[in-house]
């Protein structure tokens, strides 16, 4: 049975997702995509994409995933930027350095369903399995 790459799970007050990825690179890429899908349907504004560089360090791979998703959330909600292509210069369990190509959202045309307050650490797990990695993340909404 083929698993969905991004699954929405039930949680009483908040939103939870499970990401099924073949490796860490796909996990991080899918994670950002999941954030965008949860928030709504962003529409691209006129103009060229730009490349943004950033680097994150954490104590563990779970914390790094948290920080990565929080970064995607910040760029979306505050800077109105959606990333879609990534060049990972470093991707270790506790360090990611990336060049991310992103485009500006047309706020008026985009459909926004929910406001994500934050990526939580509650029940945050990354587990290896036969098909790669599975991560569970809960968002406070």
């Amino acid at each position, binding site marked *: 049975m083929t698993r969905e790459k991004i699954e929405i799970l*039930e949680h009483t007050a908040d939103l939870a997702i499970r990401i099924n990825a073949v490796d860490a690179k796909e996990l991080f890429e899918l994670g950002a995509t999941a954030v965008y899908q949860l928030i709504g349907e962003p529409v691209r504004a006129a103009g060229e994409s730009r490349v943004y560089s950033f680097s994150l360090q954490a104590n563990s791979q779970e914390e790094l995933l948290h920080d990565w998703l929080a970064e995607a959330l910040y760029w979306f909600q*505050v800077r109105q930027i959606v990333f879609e292509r990534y060049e990972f210069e470093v991707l270790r369990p506790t360090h990611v350095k990336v060049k991310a190509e992103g485009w500006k959202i047309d706020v008026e045309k985009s459909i926004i369903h*929910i406001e994500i*307050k*934050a990526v*939580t650490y509650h*029940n945050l797990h990354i587990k290896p399995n036969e098909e790669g990695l599975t991560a569970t993340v*809960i968002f*406070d909404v």
Partner: protein
Amino acid sequence: MTGQVWNGPLEKIDEYRYVIPANYKAGMRVPGLIYASAELIEQIKNDQAPEQVANVATLPGIVKYSMAMPDIHWGYGFCIGGVAATDPEQGGVISPGGVGYDINCGVRVLRTNLEAKDIRGSMEKLIRFLFNSVPSGVGKGGKYKFGKSESRQLLSQGVKWVVSQGLGVDRDIECCEAQGSIEGADPDAVSNRAYERGWDQCGTLGSGNHFMEVQEVVEIFDPVAAEIFGLRVGQVTVMIHSGSRGLGYQVCDDAIGDLRNAPGNYGISLPDRQLVCAPVNSPEGKTYLGAMRAAANFAWGNRQILTHLAREALVEFFGQSPDDLGLELIYDVAHNIAKMESHDVDGQKKLLCVHRKGATRAFPAGHPELPERYRSVGQPVIIPGDMGRASYILVGSPKAMSESFGSTCHGAGRVLSRGAAIRAAAGRNIAAELAQEGIIAISRDRQGLAEEQPAAYKDVSQVVDAVVGAGLAMKVAKLKPMGVIKG
């Protein structure tokens, strides 16, 4: 992830108290205490919230009990509906998870001179007018945008600064918990990202369960307190529920990140990473306290500007002066906050760090922190329900002071996940269903109303009956929604 029934031990103490014994799991320093009726406790066991009550009982310096109110439901780290007091002299900690992401999410209620029967016919127009006057919904910026210098004053002074800008009256300051400005706020402890997320959001409702509601007083339980609060049957009230918006979310997220290593550094073992904490008196603890207080002041400022916008809209809609409309703030309470408060512990006065996450302060008559106008009866306690049933105004009780660190419940509490609520609304028109009940509800999108439909919540009357039965508050008035704008 819901549906995981909790099967741990619960000892029934009396009709409204259930204890999780301290030997239930390793590391518990005190027992858990859940306030609930027999009916509500069965709902409460349907998720893992009681396990979170037990987890909180492991925090260093926790005093008496890890408590939960009848509106408890599963949160992240701490349950929502939880109360935990820690003693800094005994290594007591402060935990951002014990406050929540929406720092000083809270609620206020205004009285009016309007009669419900006189405005019922124009409710649809009134709610539409309010909806167009008050920014709400995801990502909506407000009419007021504050630069860094103004934001710092707002974060330092809360409602006092907003009123000094002409957006309120002195009574508004007096009628807020902590006078709408908690001391010790440190704007320098707030990150640039938090300022960025909040700069245009002061004076916006936000989304989710935040709302502005026009209500009718349908029942008075305590005529003396009701008269002092300025309430009578048939009167129109306006209730506002919102918090610290993106600024508060970022302050909490920053703090949880900054405190990642604190438990290890201070030898604290935690059952859940989301309970990350630091001793109240540590540098890390003090930094979070300063930032959290600044975000709390932002939230009070937010609700004050929302009040100003509501007053402007009502004055214009009805063509009457503010004095004629009588738009007076009854009270404003925080229900996601940690505060240093003096409480009796085993006959001794102690300065404790009281975390209320989804719980409301409920100080009794005579408490020195209450405004003079309410000191003879006690603090107004505002309990919002869902948009179809009711909300309540209670008053604080001496028993809350002696038993629950002056705390009671904060609302109805969710029973359906957002997904389940949306599925339950499939093929239905929630706005039309509410209209059948005489309630006008407007949201930015249909999904918002589906997620917030009455069936997604416990019956607030049951929750209130449980806290009143336990002696944690007394009923003053019941309010019924007439119209609501949701974020």
